[in-house]
Structure formats: structure tokens, C-alpha cells
């Protein structure tokens, strides 16, 4: 189907009825997914700096309230509003697939995430401008398609090609009926600017170089062990559980955590299983490019390049891939 770009605002107001609509926009100079307040979303240009991860897997999520003392009781916090993520690109869509695989499909089902995911409608859009650090193609993605999104908009100059991939997407499209016209739009042809030599065999071989200390020392040298890469990465899903106590009662919450922090693996009694930054960054890279693959069949890196642009020490996962590819194949 086709949608005239002029009618985009009307579509957005349809989407925003009684639901929280998140669109890419500027918040004090930082492009991120923000609540839509009627302005035109920034769909083109580079991808958002902060991923949409915060919507499905919030920075701080209250899990349950508790009371101690004689009548101790625990009450789960359940209310979840309906949400819509509009203007998602292929790489962020893949990150949601990864998180679905972790939180829903494997082992226990994480009820918090599952509930949020069930109440979220995702409207993806074809990638209109690859950033200088993008390499999603070499991670096996097609920037111009998002098969697992509910609705996908492809860019046709003055109009969007609209197609629904899921029944929920189709149901939603019915509401757009009056603005849709027949006809489809050719697939756009944006390509990534980077192409690191990532491949399925490299993913297998990576665990082989686990003990190559000299390589790891050189790769992890400049790292300053901050959490920037974890918190701007769309697929990092590690979290910490904590309790905010207010004198005998309070809230238990989970919040983002980063494997790069020094107290991440701090056991009671002082022993730390990964005390040095070499071990921690090695674990991060291997988890993204190898370990996750063994369990879920896809890499945990979607090639969005956010960690490359934001790393204070200018570390670069794409360069890492090229270097290890070179080391692994000989």
C-alpha cells in the first residue's frame, strides 16, 4: 500500500490515541526516541544516539513493592500502558529480536519484558542514511527491510510504501485505511559505509583465540571500563536487581548494568571472577560475537555503530572484527 508523506501527521495522531507514541526526536541535542508531542519526527539523517531499548527494557524498572515487619507482603507492579515505537530502523528491529529471544523464548519467560513486548506495536522504516560507523549489512541485516516489524514503511520519495508483517500490524493498518492508496514502492538501496569481515565461521573461531593474551592486551589497552558502550548499545540487556528501602518498606527494581563495571562480578567475600579490563572487554566482545550465537543462532551485535561513535577511548568493534578475522583465518 502507499501513504502520502503529507498525511504522516494524521497517521501519528491515530497512533497516539490512548497510547504512548515514541518517535525519533531531539531532547537537548541528543537524538533519541521521545514521546511524540505533535512535531514532525526526525526520520532521516543518522540513527538515534540512544537506542529504543529504553522503551521495552527501561533503565530502571520497578518490579515489586514489599513490606517487612509482622505482616510482610510482596505485591508485583503490573500496570503497563500500550506503546508504539515509530521510526525504528532495521538494526534496532534486530536488537528487539535478540531481546525477545533472551527474555521470552529461552528458559524462563521474563513477565515484565513479555508484558511490555505484548503491548508494544512497532512501526519500522527503511534506513534513509547510514552513519559513518554503520555495518549492519556485514552482520547479516538488510537495512532496507525489517521482516519482524509489525508495520514497515519503505521510502518512495513523496510517499511511503506500507506493508504489515504481522496480524497486529494488519489490524492497525485498517485504522489507516482512508489515507492508504494502492500500489507499492520500490525497495530503497541504502548501503552501509563499513563492511568488517564478520562471518559465521569467524563467530565459531573466536572462542579459539580466547587465550591469545598478546592480542587481547593490545585490543583492550585503551579501554577505560566505563559503561558507555553497554548503555548506548541496543542489544546489551544485562541488569542488576536492587531494593530501595524506605524504613521497613520499599520497592525492588531492576536497572541497567554493564559487564564493564568493576563490581559486576564482585562476589561476596571479595573474590572477583573478572578483575581486569582485559577479561571484561574480552567477555563483552566474545558474548556479542560468539557466545550469543551458540545459544540463539544470531550475533548479539546489529552493526548500528553507536558504540564506535560514543566510545571515549575510540575503540572500534569493526576494527576488532577485521583484526580477529585476519588472525583467525591463518
Amino acid at each position, binding site marked *: 500500500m502507499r501513504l502520502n508523506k503529507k498525511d504522516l501527521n494524521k497517521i501519528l495522531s491515530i497512533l497516539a490515541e490512548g497510547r504512548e507514541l515514541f518517535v525519533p526526536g531531539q531532547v537537548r541535542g541528543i537524538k533519541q526516541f521521545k514521546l511524540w508531542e505533535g512535531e514532525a519526527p526526525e526520520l532521516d539523517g543518522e540513527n538515534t544516539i540512544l537506542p529504543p531499548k529504553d522503551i521495552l527494557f527501561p533503565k530502571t524498572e520497578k*518490579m*515489586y513493592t*514489599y*513490606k*517487612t515487619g509482622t505482616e*510482610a*507482603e*510482596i505485591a*508485583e507492579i503490573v500496570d503497563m500502558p500500550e506503546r508504539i515505537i515509530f521510526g525504528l530502523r532495521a538494526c534496532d528491529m534486530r536488537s528487539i529480536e535478540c531481546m525477545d529471544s*533472551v*527474555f521470552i523464548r*529461552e*528458559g*524462563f*519467560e*521474563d*513477565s*515484565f519484558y513479555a508484558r511490555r513486548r505484548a503491548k508494544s506495536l512497532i512501526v519500522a522504516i527503511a534506513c534513509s542514511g547510514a552513519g559513518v560507523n554503520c555495518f549492519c549489512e556485514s552482520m547479516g541485516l538488510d537495512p532496507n527491510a525489517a521482516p519482524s516489524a509489525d508495520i514497515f514503511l519503505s521510502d518512495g520519495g513523496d510517499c511511503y510504501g506500507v506493508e504489515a508483517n504481522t496480524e497486529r500490524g494488519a489490524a492497525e493498518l485498517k485504522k489507516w485505511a482512508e489515507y492508504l492508496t494502492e500500489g507499492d514502492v520500490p525497495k530503497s538501496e541504502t548501503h552501509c559505509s563499513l563492511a568488517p569481515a564478520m562471518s559465521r565461521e569467524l563467530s565459531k573461531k573466536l*572462542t579459539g583465540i*580466547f*587465550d591469545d593474551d598478546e592480542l587481547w592486551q593490545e585490543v583492550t589497552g585503551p579501554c577505560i571500563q566505563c559503561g558507555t558502550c553497554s548503555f548506548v548499545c541496543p542489544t546489551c*540487556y*544485562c*541488569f*542488576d*536487581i*536492587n*531494593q530501595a*528501602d524506605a524504613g*521497613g*518498606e*520499599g520497592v*525492588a527494581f*531492576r536497572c541497567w*548494568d554493564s*559487564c564493564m563495571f568493576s563490581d*559486576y*562480578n*564482585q*562476589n*561476596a*567475600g571479595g573474590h572477583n*571472577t*573478572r578483575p581486569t579490563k582485559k*577479561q571484561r572487554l574480552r*567477555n563483552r566482545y*566474545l*558474548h556479542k560475537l*560468539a*557466545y*550469543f550465537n*551458540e*545459544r540463539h543462532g544470531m550475533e548479539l551485535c546489529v552493526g548500528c555503530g553507536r558504540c564506535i561513535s560514543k566510545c571515549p577511548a575510540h575503540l572500534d568493534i569493526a576494527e576488532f572484527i577485521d583484526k580477529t578475522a585476519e588472525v583467525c583465518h591463518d
Partner: protein
Amino acid sequence: MIEVNHDCTCQGNPLVPQVCRITDIRNETGDVKTFRVQSLDGKRPFLPMPGQLGMWSMLGVGEAMFSITAFGEDWIESSIKAVGELTEAMHELSVGDFVGLRGPYGNGFPVDALKGRDILFIGGGIGAAPVRSLIRWCAVHREQYGRFDIVCGARTIDDVPFREDFFENWPKMDNTGVHITVDRKTDNWNGSVAFIPDYVETLGLTPENRKVVMCGPSIMIRLTTERLAKLGFARGDIITSMETRMKCGIGKCGRCNIGSKYVCLDGPVFTLTELDELPAE
């Protein structure tokens, strides 16, 4: 894949614990206490397999994973050593107080693989707790297993936990040898004074048809494995339970990974061969 039963949670959400009441607290040693709990409606919170863990939550302080060392008709028990702020806070609890509990987690000991075998149980200090859960299970199904040799090591005799099991119940089991050793001699003990690795060597056990179940500090495991290897034990026959930091307990938070394996989901029980495949972290 991993079969999952989590019937002790609040309306099925694996991350939200259920309130349970402490019905009994026993002082095992100076710094180890065993807490027995029951859910509010007086029933057993969940039916754990031997070696499985429960996530104990002291409301307002924090959560930690402890192996379920024993269970009965309407209770389960865990032994907790006071090492950090949370465990010290729990040691201040008294009977009738409430804790949060969710579980069971972990894959538990491979009871089927052990069927028909002689078993050497080794428990180092608080490591005796997970081993005890397996011994109690094997005691119930005694006929399915061969000879038992139970070894317990501790700093001094006063640090040996579960005294009535080690000294009364288990020696009475047929075809069972109970061997206690301590690091440091005290006047109320005249038995063996030796580190576990050396002591195990003196027991003269043969590797044929025998599996070893060993839990305790990692140095003890490493040294004892070397001695067992000298005695001819294959690494595949040695089973241990990993003691790492676990946060969520359901394989999501990423904290307890060794390579691609999650200790709380794929473990904590591994054979040494499985551990060798993982990257040496």
C-alpha cells in the same frame, strides 16, 4: 533444552519472590546457620531436586542464591555462611520473621547418571550443604546406588556443619563410610588432621564404577582433582557445583556466564569435562 519449573514465584513472575516464614533456625557452626522456611499457607514453597538453588531475599537488604540443602513435607532448608552484609543481616533474623524466596533454579545433580554407581561425596566447609542434598536424596533411594564414601573437611571440628547427619544418621546407612578431616587439630578432636586432597588419597578408593561429587572452595577442588587424576579418576567422573555470583537466577541478567554457559541455568552442576570445554575464566 532446559526444562523449567518455577512454581514458587508470585503469580508466575520468576523475578518476584514469595513471602515465606522462618520456622526454625539451627546454629550449625560459629558462622553457619540453617534456615528452615515454609510458605505463608504452611506448605513447602517448592519441590527442589538435589543440588538445586533457591533465591533467598532479605526484604530491604538484598537477594542471594543458596543451595537447598534439605527439604521435608512442608519445609525447605538452606545453610547460609555469614560472609557479606546480606548474609550477616540474615544471621540477625529470628524464628517467625519473613523472607522472600523464589526458585528452584539450576540443573541439580545428575541423579540418573549416578544410578548403580559407587559415589564419593566430598564437601569442603560450607560446600557440604549442596552435597548433603544429594546424600539425603540417595539415602531415600539407597537401593539404586552402590557404596557411599562421605568425606567432609573443615578448618576445625567446630566448623563441621550438619553434625547429627555426619555423626549419627549417615554412619548408620549400610555400605557407607563417613570420613571427617580437619585442617587444624583442637583438643576435642582426635580423628584425621589433614587437608582434603591428601586425605582423599589415603582412603584408597579405586576409580572403577565410582563417581565423585565434590563441592567447596575452588582451590580445594583444583588440588583434589589432581590427586584423583593420579588415582586414575577420569575428569568426566568428577561432578562439582560452581559457586559464582548469581543475580537474577533465571539466565537473563548475564552475570554468571562462563563462556556461553550460564551457571544459574545450565549449571551450577557441571562435570569437569564440561568445565574444560568452557573458556578458562
